[in-house]
Structure formats: structure tokens, C-alpha cells
């Protein structure tokens, strides 16, 4: 399942699961991620301090004063990973308001894709998404795959400030900006839901790698009345 293991510097193991981006490869990455997380929790392995699953890679950081690359590599090679039978397919529902004041890029998208806004919304909301990875900024989920009919490149000039809560698409992916940040994705709406909550110490990140996400449309009134 892992195609190649190498070192990324002197404190990380780089597990390469392939070059394509698809749910099958990503599910492998996430199985390893869950399995190793559990071994760390149960103290069956020493010195691992971080795991970063992404589309088709898993990076394992370790403390070089406790262990080293060779030991962690051998440990990973010795693992037998079974499909996570425990249902990880918890479905998370995310409300989105797509009024033009929140969906900042409909004009661009309708021109580029040559379809109208209603069709974009129909294709976008008509699908359940899968969380490939979470990151870049705290809690930002990278979800996919969106319908082929609404795939579009990033903006030529990225925005300096993307509003917090923006729901955006690019290529085969969709994401949610959990903080105001620079960004170049096409914005189709905004969610009032807290997707990352610093004050929730036990579980700050709503959407984690492997989760399923369903977006649904709300009106501006419902958006403004949203209370959590």
C-alpha cells in the first residue's frame, strides 16, 4: 500500500502512497493515520510527535532525541493495516448561504464554465463529499470530488483576504476558509457554522480526514439568525 518510504530531513518519515489523487489512495493514507494514532495513544511506539495525512502522503514526525529514521521506518514497514471497520463515515452537515454577497465568484464561474448559477448550485449541492485532509490553516478541510461540470482553476490573482467561513472550489476540490486568510479559490458562499473552534479544547476541528460532508443551502435570513 505504501509505495515508497524515505526521509524528509532528519526528523520525519515520508510515506508515499502514489501520485494520483483519489478516494481509494487517500483511504489507505487515512487507515495508516488512524492505526498509528492508536498505537501512539496506547504507548506502543515511542517518539512519534506528529502525523500529517494528505491526499496521497503520510508524514510522520519524530523526536530525534528519542528515536530515529531507521527505527520508525522499520516500525512502519512491520505494520499490518486492516480497513478501519469502525464506521468513520460520520456525516457532517454544513449550511451555506450562496447569495451574491457571499458567493463572490459566481460571475467568473458562470463565464468560465458556461453554465448558470442555478446549475452550479444544483451540481455542487447534489453530492456528498469526502475529507482528504485538514490543514494549511487550522481546521481547513480539503474535500472532494466536485462534479466535473463545475471544476475551475484558481483565480489568476489570489485575494489578499478571503472572508472567514467562505466556501470555495477549485479543480476537483472544495474547502472552507476557517480564518480570514489570503487565498485563490473560487468562492461560492459562506457558512455561519463554526468549523474550527479554539475554545473547544477537546475537539476544535469539526471536519477531520476521512469524514463525509454534506453541504446544504440556507437563506440569508437563516444565515444571519444562525446561533451556535
Amino acid at each position, binding site marked *: 500500500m505504501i509505495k515508497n518510504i524515505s526521509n524528509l530531513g*532528519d526528523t520525519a518519515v515520508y510515506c508515499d502512497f502514489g501520485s494520483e489523487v483519489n478516494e481509494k489512495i487517500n483511504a489507505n493514507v487515512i487507515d495508516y493515520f488512524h492505526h498509528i494514532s492508536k498505537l501512539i495513544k496506547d504507548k506502543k511506539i515511542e517518539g512519534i510527535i506528529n502525523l500529517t*495525512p494528505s491526499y496521497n502522503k503520510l508524514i510522520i*514526525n519524530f523526536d530525534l532525541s528519542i528515536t530515529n529514521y531507521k527505527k520508525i521506518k522499520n516500525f512502519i514497514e512491520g505494520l499490518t493495516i486492516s480497513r478501519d471497520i469502525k464506521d468513520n463515515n460520520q456525516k457532517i452537515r454544513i449550511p451555506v448561504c450562496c447569495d451574491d454577497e457571499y458567493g463572490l465568484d459566481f460571475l467568473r464561474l458562470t463565464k468560465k464554465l458556461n453554465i448558470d448559477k442555478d446549475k452550479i448550485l444544483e451540481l455542487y449541492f447534489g453530492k456528498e463529499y469526502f475529507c482528504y485532509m485538514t490543514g*494549511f490553516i*487550522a481546521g481547513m478541510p480539503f474535500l472532494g470530488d466536485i462534479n466535473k461540470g463545475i471544476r475551475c482553476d484558481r483565480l489568476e490573482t489570489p485575494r489578499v483576504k478571503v472572508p472567514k467561513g467562505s466556501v470555495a472550489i477549485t479543480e476537483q476540490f472544495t474547502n472552507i476558509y476557517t480564518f480570514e486568510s489570503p487565498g485563490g479559490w473560487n468562492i461560492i458562499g459562506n457558512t455561519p457554522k463554526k468549523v474550527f473552534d479554539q475554545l473547544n479544547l477537546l475537539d476544535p476541528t469539526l471536519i477531520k480526514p476521512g469524514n463525509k460532508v454534506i453541504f446544504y443551502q440556507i437563506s440569508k435570513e437563516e444565515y444571519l439568525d444562525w446561533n451556535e
Partner: protein
Amino acid sequence: MSNSYFEIIRSGVNTTIQDRGRNHMYYMGITVSGAIDQRNYKLSNKLVGNNLDEAVIEFAYQGPLLKLKNGKINLSVTGDVLFKIIRKNSNIENGVCYKSYILEDEDQIDLISTKNTAYGYLSISGGLELNKIWNSYSINTKANVGPNNGKKYSIKDKIFIKNSDFKKIEEIEINYREVPDNIIRVIKGTNFDYFSVEAQNNFFNKEFSVTKLADRMGIRLSGPKLENIVNTNIKSEGLVRGAIQVPADGNPIVMLSDHGTIGGYPKIGVVISADLDRVGQLTPGSIINFKEVSLEEAENIFKAYTDDTDKYLNENN
């Protein structure tokens, strides 16, 4: 809760709380943070008799001016820092780094500036009265994670001090001086072969200078443009401290403690662990050279680095 605190009279440009950093959160997009210069962070705690993982005040370039209220403490400053202690009776003492001082009620410490490095550290005996967030005191101002609502300190804020009963510890000194060195040692990155042979040679043989775009997230360098002959983007994947990414413009960026957890630019190299403190301390305009080392060499250098750190830490035992 103790009622001693520092009143912030001048906040400085980037004054935060840091410690060893925050682990096991990359998968949520929460980065490690922690002191940029881990050795100076540990030395500062050692000088005031703290556990080495106690929270300290990190500052960059211009540091804060702090007045002690309702207490008596030991403190120390590490790094390459110009500072003064202003006593209640207006006497002024010029500060010396790597030495512990006693600060009394209404005394002030003026952390005027760092000199040839970017970051300095102020430790206080007993540590600071703060709550850990996800097992760390580190403040990440980009994600607003950590104490003080994840924000840098501003004028009029108070920094509370944990230890109210002062124990006089012997004023000690550590005979530590940073040896200036412009060689940064690097292990080849996972995308090293994305770069032309000329770019690979330039990377290890030409000089690079640190630009003004340098903060706790990372530092951008300028030098010979590193030509990518495969693809200037990769599918986004995890990053680590010290990773050197090269975007399409050919200028390398070194990731530091507050780096984004994933990135989509090819990685030409990774700075070895033993050189992370030094690379983080570089100031704009500094000239550096990268030198290739093998994984095995990097591991040996790291052992020497920790032995060396331990030697300084144990100097007064």
C-alpha cells in the same frame, strides 16, 4: 493565583509566549509553534532554576519594556540582546545576557533590541501564570491559538507571574556565546530532482540572502533563481520545520515554527535539526550558504548539538 505581574509599558514588535511547542495537532492544521531558538529558550529557563519546558517571553527585534508589580523575581535574558534594568530608584544597570538577575517590585526591564539575531528570550523564576492550550503555552498569532487569545502582547496588557513566594537563587551565569556561522546544513528534499542540474549546483554553491519577508512562519531567501524542470506545484502534502520550498518564482522559503501544516511547492531540501535555531535567528540581509549532509551525518551533528547544549545547561551543577 499570584498577584504579581508585568505591566507592559512598550509591547515590542512581536512579543509572545513560547515553549517547546505543540505536538500531535498537524493533522488538524494546527502547527507546532514553540520558541524559534530552542537552545536559547532552554538556557533561559535553566538560568532562573526553572524546568526546561517552562513558558518564556519571546521577542523579536525591538523587545518590550516591562514593569514588575507586586513581586520579586529572578529573571534572565538569552540571545544577542541589548537590555537595561531600571531600578525603582531610577538607577540603570546595563544588562548582560546569560546571567540571572533579581528584579524587585516596581523595577523595570527594558529589552531594547536584539543585535545580530532576530529573537531573544526572557525567563522568569517559577514561570508565568497561564493556561496551556493543547499541552503548550506557545502563542500562534496566525491561528490565534494559545494564551492571551493567541495574540501578541500589546501595551497595557498584563503578564501574570506564577511564583509569588520568592526564593533567592544564586545569581548565575552561563558562559555561552554564539559562534557566528553562515553555513546552513541541509539534507536533500523529496523533490530535489525537480530542479535543473544548474539549480542543484547553485543551491549548494551560491550565496543566498535573507529578504525582509521573514517571520515566525518562515523566511524567504533571494539568490540565483532555482529552475524547476518538472512541475512548480506538487499535490499538497505535509510540511516540517526546516523544509525549504521553492515556488514558481525560484526563490526558496525556509519553514519555521509557525509554518502552514501543508504546502504545495516542491521541497529542494530540509535544514537539519541542529541548524534550526541558527536559521530561525537570521535577520534580513544575512548571507548564507547551504551545505549538503547525509542523514547519518545530520544525526551525528544533532547528537553533538544536544551534548553541547547539555554542557551549557550543566555548567552550574
